[in-house]
């Protein structure tokens, strides 16, 4: 279970809409919790894949990750996952997503159709790296 406050989920989706027709990405900052993780904030980042291919590829560099770790640690948080968008494509992991995936991280994918976010879904890599399993997203609305 991945718990995301509604305003944070909206920020993730807005980032994907702003990046359209390219893919947008960033880091999920938060904490591990019993039975899952809680997203507390995001760190939106620039897509570092080569410019002409960003419509279907994204990259975050090791320097991005070090910066994210520093920012997370400063706030008593961890990097708990990655978010990225799939322009005009379902919110499901591709083979490339799987090939490059880290275990444990939550991968939140937002499908963006014609610059409008349609749905966000979260995925976890299987232990044997053979596939992703969907992880439920819980809306952390107060009350």
């Amino acid at each position: 279970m991945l718990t995301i406050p509604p305003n944070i989920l909206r920020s993730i989706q807005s980032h994907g809409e702003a990046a359209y027709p390219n893919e947008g990405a960033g880091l999920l900052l938060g904490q591990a919790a019993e039975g899952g993780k809680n997203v507390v904030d995001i760190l939106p980042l620039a897509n570092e894949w080569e410019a002409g291919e960003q419509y279907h590829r994204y990259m975050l560099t090791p320097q991005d990750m070090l910066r994210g770790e520093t920012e997370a640690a400063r706030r008593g948080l961890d990097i708990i996952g990655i978010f990225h968008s799939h322009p005009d494509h379902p919110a499901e992991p591709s083979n490339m997503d799987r090939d490059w995936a880290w275990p444990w991280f939550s991968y939140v994918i937002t499908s963006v159709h014609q610059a409008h976010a349609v749905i966000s879904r979260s995925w976890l890599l299987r232990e044997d790296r053979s596939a992703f399993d969907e992880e439920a997203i819980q809306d952390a609305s107060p009350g």
Partner: protein
Amino acid sequence: MTTIRIPTPLRPYTNSQAEVPVTGATVGDALSDLTRQYPNLKQHLYNDGGQLRAFVNIFLNDEDIRHIRGADTPVQERDRLMIVPSIAGGGRLA
């Protein structure tokens, strides 16, 4: 002793240790010692051909070992190695 910093997604494989002491004269030896101590790390660090996966970066005292001598880079006592992820992926094939 040389230490290796473990990124969050790999800590489930190191009994939650963020820093693991290792022995070895080179970066390659140090990584071998790490996977000897925690064998389940191996599949996430190396591909089927035994090469470090493209998204696994090893930094020696803040410098990427690919810019030094790779796995043959010598390590000294008190050196600090870091495993740093890069992240990539994407949707449509073309």
